[in-house]
């Protein structure tokens, strides 16, 4: 753990707090994520994982504390500005544009970085967008379904489409909120392979319930319970940690 902290982190939260009424969902959290790692955040339901990443991507505003990204304070930055820094979030509940074609779904994030300046907002070389769209769809193994409506896809493919959308946004820090939820065994295996490939070019922050997935993917694991970080370490260390076993693994 000391080794991780010594490297200048890509992402750091300092004493981050979020309260909903009387409930403190995230309580004084210091999280450090180094560039290039796959970091898993685990914990029982209601531990504050989704709230924590919600603040990192800008969906939620913290009550106190700071968020630093590449050394910059981004606490007050709006979500669309954070995306331009490379922070990309995928929702826990599938959040695609159901009524649009897969192509259009991916084209929206794919065109974002091309829209610089007034003229580019009015007209883009559609080839440049199309190239990015097809590359992202191919990366998740969904080539050939570009013209299908997104809601006509099977659930597992919808999750993959969502991943293609995130990839098209060119993430530096990709936040995946329970990506394996509702997937079949074979699909989970495919997804793990994908995440490993993505992690070669980006840092991945993974919220996950599925312990085998966490153990297979993550270099480091952060365990949360009741809004606080209760343990941090390699997967092997976490498995042995007595507090974790009590709070989370239920042994």
């Amino acid at each position, binding site marked *: 753990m000391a080794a991780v902290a010594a490297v200048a982190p890509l992402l750091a939260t300092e004493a981050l707090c979020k309260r909903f009424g009387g409930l403190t969902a995230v309580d004084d959290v210091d999280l450090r994520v180094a560039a290039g790692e796959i970091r898993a955040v685990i914990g029982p339901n209601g531990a504050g994982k989704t709230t924590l990443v919600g603040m990192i991507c800008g969906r939620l505003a913290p009550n106190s504390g700071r968020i630093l990204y590449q050394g910059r304070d981004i606490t007050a930055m709006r979500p*669309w500005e954070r*995306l331009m820094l490379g922070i990309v*979030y995928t929702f826990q509940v599938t959040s695609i*544009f159901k*009524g*649009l074609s897969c192509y259009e779904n991916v084209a929206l994030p794919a*065109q*974002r970085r091309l829209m610089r300046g007034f003229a580019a907002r009015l*007209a883009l070389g559609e080839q440049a967008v199309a190239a990015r769209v097809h590359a992202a769809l191919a990366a998740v193994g969904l080539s050939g379904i570009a013209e299908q409506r997104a809601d006509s896809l099977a659930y597992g493919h919808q999750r993959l489409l969502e991943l293609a959308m995130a990839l098209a946004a060119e993430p530096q820090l990709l936040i995946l909120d329970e990506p394996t939820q509702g997937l079949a065994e074979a699909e989970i295996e495919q997804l793990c392979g994908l995440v490993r490939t993505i992690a070669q070019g980006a840092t991945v922050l993974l919220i996950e319930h599925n312990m085998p997935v966490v153990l297979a993917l993550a270099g480091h694991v952060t365990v949360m319970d009741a809004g606080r970080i209760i343990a941090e370490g390699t997967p092997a260390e976490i498995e042995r940690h007595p507090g974790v076993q009590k709070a989370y693994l239920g042994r």
Partner: protein
Amino acid sequence: MNGHAARRVLTLHLGVIVLLFLAQFALPDYHHTNVARIMVLAAYALGYNILLGYTGLMSLGHAMFFAAGMYGAGLPVYYLGFGAAGALVTGVAAGMLLAALFGLVALRTSGVSFLIVSLMFAQAFYLASLYFNEITLGDQGFSLSGNLAPLELGGASLGFHEPALKYNAALLLFTACFLLSLGLRLSPIGRVLIAIRENEERTRLFGYDSMRYKLLALVLSGGLAAAAGATYALLFSYVGSTFASILFSIYPLLWRLLGGVGTILGPLVGTGLMFYLVDIASGITSAYLLVVGVVLVVLILWFPQGIMGTLRAKWLPWLP
């Protein structure tokens, strides 16, 4: 969209414009004027469609933008002796300014709240047009004939009472609004607007400041509505507060629902159909509104997404 599909879309839509241009040589006088009026009102519906069809915001207050264009053009002609071109500019500017101010307040809301807020603003605008009747002449209104200098075109002097001028000016307005809508739809901005309609939060997290896009859509929408209002005042020579009433906020919604949800051709189809429905029914019976109502219900039963919307869903998925 690939090149082939884009060509097909362009051919169809330009074909409609060409057809409208040629129609003026074939139409009898009565329908000639009707079609001119339909084209101006369809431009209004196109403006409305930018907000509802592409951004998903339903307004019940667009009459205020139409009327802002009407007064913005009509008052300078009536009191200051403006020409048609100057009046069109002031009319459109009035509508866009009103839309921007309205948007800064009203876009804090969405859904039903937005509908109600737009209705309240439009009612305030309507009541103001009655209250200041020393200037606006209230619901009695005023005529522009006699105030508006004829249009000078390359030596020829064209009065605004000329049917040919009416028709072609209306066609020009419609074409401009039509191409603007189509261009917007196919532009990167259009993609963002549609995404906002489908899922606003997801769009924000993909790097788009949705408030700015919604404001842009509202200002464009108000601008087209105002251009239609200004042109209506200039071509049909009448300005009155009736055009600011709730009925004129409901019309574009009806035209659009009838014509087709989120299509570019829908507003023209819906406006034309509704216009002739009223026209024909009122020639048959004095209870024509009853007939119109029944026909509308039947049409919506058969074409739940409007005529063009249903065509698209069933047979023409490439229709923008």
